[in-house]
Every structure is written in C-alpha cells, then in structure tokens.
C-alpha cells in the first residue's frame, strides 16, 4: 500500500507541527509522521503525569486536516517516496514535497565512567521520567551547559527527584553576560526567572565540569572539578546536557547538501543547507528547525511555518515570516557563543575509555585512524545498533574524524519491512531464476 501526500513532514515536534498547520491552511493534503506514538517530538514529549505546556497544547490543537502517522519510523528513501516501518508492518509514503523536521539529539561526550547505568543524557532522563520512570527521592546531578539544564532540572524536580545541583561548565562571567542579553528577549527572561524560581535552593555551580563517574554495576559517585579543585559527590543519577546536534541522516540519505563549516572553522556536526525559503539542495525537499542547525524551539516553530507555507506554494506567507526567523536565529548564536564548550571537556576520555558502546571500542584502539570508515573496518567502531550516532558524533566532537555517511536502513528495521512494501517486477524474476 502506498499513501500519497502533497506535503509529507518527517518529525512531529515544534517544527513539524508548525509546518503541518501552515501547509494544511492552504488546502494541501498533509501527512505528518513521527516515530513516537504522540505528537510533540522530544521537547514537547507527552508527560504521563503532568499537563503539556500551553504552547504545545495550542500547536497540537491547531492541527486541522492533517493525517498524523504515529509510530512511523523512516527506514529508507527512494525517489519521491519513503519506506516507513510501523508496529504492524511497513509501507511506502509518497509525496510531492517533503519537509524534514527531524530535530536534534543530545551530544554525549565520553569520559571515564560515562557508560555506567545511571549516567544519561539530560534530555534522555527527562524523557524517561515523563514516561513514569521512578525518579522520586533519587539523588540527581544535572551537568553540562546552557539553559536546557534548567529545563531538565525543573522537570526532574517536578517528578520528585532530589536535585543535588546543577553543574554548568561555562564560567559565571559568560552566564551573566548571557543573562544581560536576555533583556532584549523579554519572554525568555520571564521564562528563565520562572525556571530559577522552580529550582530555588538547588546549588547552581559555574565553571565546573564532571570529570569522572564512579560505580561498580551502577553510578555511585562523581568527581566535579572547578577553579578550586576536585570534589567527590555521591549520587544515583547524572544527567548530562552538553548541547544538541542536528539529525541529518535522512537528509544525507536523500542526497541533500550538508554544511560542515569552513576549513578555518570546521563544524563537528553537519546541518542541512537550505535557502531563504528553506529549500534543500534536492528538489521538492525542505528542511526546518534543528536539522538546519541548532536554533531552539522558537526558531523551529517559525521555520516549520515557513517551510509549510513554501511547500504548499504560498511563498508570500512564507516570506512574511523571514524577519522573525532571523531574530530567533540570532538568539541561537548568542547561546552558542556564551555556552561554548570548555576545551577541557574534550580531554576527559582516557585511552581506556570506551567510545563505541555497541562494540566496546576504546579510544586508544582508534589512535592513528584519520577517517571513520578505516576505523570502522578495523575496529567495528560505529557498526552497532546506534549506527554511529553516539560514537561517531563523539569522535567528531573530539576532533578525531567526521562521521561516515548514512545508509539504509536509517534505523534498525525488521527484515520483513525491507521486503513487504510494494511487490514488484523483480519478484517474478527471482522466482523464475531457478
């Protein structure tokens, strides 16, 4: 079975929701797919115990005349159609135009002990507790950088976690300079004040990094370093947020050009190149939100709307939003500037630290390799189920070598899914070949 859409959107987070609403407002037949069962993406992930934020409810309620395809995972791309896997089977979705709203994932930085159970991404732990994973009474440290640490900490506290502290790697001067800039962004200033109020009494340390996680079977303690020295702290959970990186695997599979920075200022993590109307280098394929470079929630919503209008042929409506997009992207560059990672963080992993968790490859096993493919062939680094999303991105961040290209299936997929969609001429040939 092949479903056909005028506009097909991959990812039902803020960018995808805005894109769907905008495209549908012009009468386009719109499909919105997501690997999760519910709308909202990562940032507006459904919380089983607490109501969604107002903005998320509004964005979801505003959806009219849009076909939502939940639990649809894209596993391969063919011209003008995607192969998706569902719990029931697999199908092709064909499109006239495609919008990639594939969002971002957490950057995980290797350091001694980072593979211990109890050490997670800050967003990952947030997602777990929203699904009722028991955190009440557990001693939690949130560490990393940027305002998302506060958001994660607030969610964890709301679910009963005992927050021992927030460990921010940026120096106090940088955080204060950023806070002063918030005067130009009143809504965000209000949001920040609200978050701080909800985190009253939680120690907020600056210029501090987690160097080491300790434990036998499970995390038991961490070592924090700041200007005054090192300190050991017992805890049950360490939630780390060193920033986000764009999900570009589907774009790459489709052949969209990616931006890896300039030779002078190379970017460890590529993003999708788009023009002012968010068209990628591939005809009829648009990209919006984090996939185009980390820009945050507000930028994602505006870009989603721009791409949705443009994909439905409404260029004027799309163009009208461009100034707001520019403003939100400025805010993102402000964040990137003030919360740039301390180079010490790239030196934490020791030669014995596991880099590829799927295949147990240590950092020293990767010495001497200058490209991802050679390293993979010799050590299996990146050959596991995460397909290099974690180790490949970490190695790029550490300055070893860029991640290698993406191949189908984009995510591990049932063998039957690669077969059952669209029986074709080739069946006849294969059955007659003996």
């Amino acid at each position, binding site marked *: 079975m092949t479903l056909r859409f005028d506009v097909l959107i991959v990812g039902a987070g803020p960018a995808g929701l805005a894109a769907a609403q905008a495209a549908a407002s012009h009468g386009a037949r719109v499909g919105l797919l997501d690997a999760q069962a519910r709308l909202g993406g990562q940032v507006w992930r459904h919380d089983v115990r607490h109501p969604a934020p107002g903005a998320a409810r509004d964005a979801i309620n505003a959806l009219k005349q849009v076909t939502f395809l939940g639990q649809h995972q894209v596993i391969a791309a063919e011209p003008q159609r995607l192969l998706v896997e569902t719990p029931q089977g697999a199908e092709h979705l064909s499109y006239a135009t495609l919008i990639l709203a594939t969002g971002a994932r957490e950057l995980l930085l290797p350091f001694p002990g980072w593979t211990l159970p109890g050490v997670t991404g800050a967003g990952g732990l947030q997602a777990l507790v929203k699904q009722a994973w028991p955190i009440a009474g557990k001693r939690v440290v949130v560490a990393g950088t940027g305002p998302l640490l506060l958001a994660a900490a607030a969610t964890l506290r709301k679910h009963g976690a005992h927050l021992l502290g927030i460990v921010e790697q940026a120096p106090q001067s940088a955080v204060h300079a950023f806070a002063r800039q918030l005067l130009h962004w009143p809504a965000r200033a209000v949001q920040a004040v609200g978050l701080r109020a909800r985190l009253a009494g939680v120690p907020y340390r600056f210029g501090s990094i987690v160097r080491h996680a300790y434990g036998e079977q499970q995390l038991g303690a961490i070592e924090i370093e700041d200007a005054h020295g090192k300190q050991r702290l017992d805890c049950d959970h360490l939630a780390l947020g060193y920033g986000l990186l764009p999900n570009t695997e589907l774009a790459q599979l489709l052949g969209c050009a990616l931006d890896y920075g300039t030779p002078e200022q190379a970017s460890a993590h590529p993003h999708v190149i788009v023009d002012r109307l968010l068209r990628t280098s591939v005809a009829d394929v648009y990209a919006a939100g984090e996939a185009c470079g980390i820009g945050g929630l507000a930028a994602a919503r505006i870009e989603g709307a721009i791409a949705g209008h443009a994909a439905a042929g409404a260029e004027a409506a799309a163009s009208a939003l461009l100034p707001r997009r520019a403003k939100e992207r400025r805010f993102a560059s402000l964040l990137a500037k003030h919360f740039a990672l301390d180079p010490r963080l790239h030196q934490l992993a020791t030669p014995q630290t596991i880099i590829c968790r799927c295949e147990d490859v240590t950092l020293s096993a990767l010495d001497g390799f200058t490209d991802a493919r050679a390293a993979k*062939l010799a050590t299996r680094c990146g050959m596991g189920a995460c397909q290099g999303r974690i180790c490949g991105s970490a190695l790029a961040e550490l300055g070893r070598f860029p991640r290698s290209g993406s191949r189908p299936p984009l995510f591990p997929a049932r063998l039957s899914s690669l077969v059952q969609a669209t029986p074709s001429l080739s069946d006849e*040939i294969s059955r007659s070949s003996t």
Partner: protein
Amino acid sequence: MSSRCYDLIVIGAGIIGTSCADAAAAEGLRVAIVEPGPIGGGSTAAAMGHLVAMDDDPAELALTRYSLHEWELFASLPEAEFSRCGTLWVARNEAEARVIPARIARLGAAKVEAHAIDTQNLYELEPALAPGLYGGLLVPREAVVYPPRMALYLAQRAQSNGATLYAGRSASKLGHAAGTDQVLLDDGTQLSGPTLVATGCALPTLLPQLPMRARKGHLLITERYPGVLHHQLLELGYADSAHGDADSSVAFNVQPRPTGQILIGSSREFSATDSAVSPAMVRRMLERAFDFMPSLRQLQALRTWTGFRPTTPDGRPYLGAVPGQNKLWVAAGHEGLGVTTALGSARLMLDLLLGRTPAIDPAPYAPSRVIA
C-alpha cells in the same frame, strides 16, 4: 629526481595485495605497498569472508585447496576472527540433490572433507530452515573470517618485516611498457623495481589490456542473534548464480558471524555501476533468503551495503607476468573468491617472481590467456 628502489612494489592493499606484500616481506624482499584508501577498503571490506571450496572448475579448486591450507595458519589469530562454522549446501528437492555425490567425489579428490546430509540431519543441523527441504552437503572444515582486519594485519606484518607503506597515494604511471621499472605516484614520488598490480576492479586504470568487469553485490547484516544459525548456508544452485553470466541473479547465502550477527547475501549484477544500495535488489535477495529460512523475517537489519567483485571473462584470476612488459606482474580478478584464494595466490606469485616452481600449475591463471 632519484627513485626509491624496491625488490617488489605492490600496488593495491586489498586482501590480494596485502597477502602478496606479506609473503614477499617474509622472504626478505624489500617491499613497497601503494594504497590510496584504507587498507582492505575496497572489495575486501565488502566481502562476506567465507572460505569456501568451489569445485566446478578444477583449476579454481586447486588454488582454493592450496589457499585453505595456508588459512589454517591463521585459525587462532584474533585479527582474522576465524570461525569454523562449516558450509552446508542446501538441496530443496531430490533433483537438486543429484549433484551431491559428484561434488563429494571432486572435493574428496582435492582432500576437502564433505558429507551428504539427509532430511532429518538437515533439520538437526539447522532447525530454522523452512519445512519441505530435501537435504544437503556439509563441508565441515570450512570457515569464515573478517577480511578487512585480516588485510590490515597482513599489511602491518609486512611493515614489521621492513615493507614501506605509501598510504593515501596511488600509482599514476607505470614505466614497464617502455622497458623501465619506474612507478610514478600521484604525489610525484618515484619508485622503481619489479611491480605487482593488485588493484582488483580498478585494474583497467593501469592495465587496460586485461579485461575486467565489476560485478556488484549486496549484503545485509542483522543485530545479534546467537544460536539462530550455525553454519554458512548456501543453496546448491548458488554456483549457477555465481558462475552464470546472467546480468543479475540472487542466491540464498547466509552466514553466522562470531558476534551472533547474521550476514545475508547474495546478489550479482553486471550492469549496475553505482555503489548505491538498490531497494529492489535487497528485496529480491531477502525474498530468496526467506524462502529458505522464513524466521529471518522477524530479525532486525542493522546495515546494508554493496561491493564490487573483480571479474575476468573466464572467472579465473590473473596471476602471473603481464605479457610484453618489463618486470610487471598482476594478481587480480578473483571475483567472489578473493578472500578464499588470497593466501594461495600470494604463494603462487612469490614462486613465479622468484623463479621457483609453484606448488600448483600456474598455467590456468596466466594473464597471457586473454592477450592474443
């Protein structure tokens, strides 16, 4: 500019080139290896790594047997990831099984142990096979290896025996036709000495007089499912796919990796020249596999990839001197048996290079057979 002199310059560091370089360095020759990409990064990286005796061509069987004997030396080498899973050829019906006695006889003559397997025995060996199959042929001593890492090991061992690796560079010009022994690299480096071209599918770039076609294949690997599959399984009709000249064909060919993963093949295409994974070909290949092993349907696929087999007009590799050239040699064109026959090919080449009598008759592989 002065050139650096070697006893042997090996161009290409796939499984063939690294086997030859390792054998030469072990004999005390001063060896250079020239490779523009990763070691074992071409056909070697894409290969299944099945060490298998194909018995339909006596020459091929002789080279295979010679080579399998050499592989035994690496059976406990961690880098080789040698796993003696054996090969089980599956017959769907009595008609297909009729070839089995003749195959056992041919393999036996080459001292390769093989047994006929009846229906009950077939399902005892591989319970996950589809019901209704007839029997098979078991070759218990055959094994699987991990080719790119083996190539890297051989290159490193050659280096520890004094070989020089010119990495990230390719040979842009050979002087052997003009009577010199100069090799010019693309960065301007000049090497000189007897030269062995082992560039597989890329052979026509340096030796256009030796016909070579690239035969595309697809492979797929699953997540880890230890215990689901025990032997390398092939359909008895595999040789028709492997050695037929159809433009495209698929055959049931699955392998248990030591990791518990299952490697699924195989496809052959002559006309496809781009390396992209073809969803239609993957579909066709998997449908074939499901016919023999329906439970594969529910397993998770991790990756698919493609590779190209260097294929000569008669399916035999070119091993020997390049006619009409000064001190120029070739070892290329092993199609799907490059990993199986690499070590034997290297022994044969060294004997020819050093003027010794090879352990097997080199005539069937002489490049002169295709040059009038």
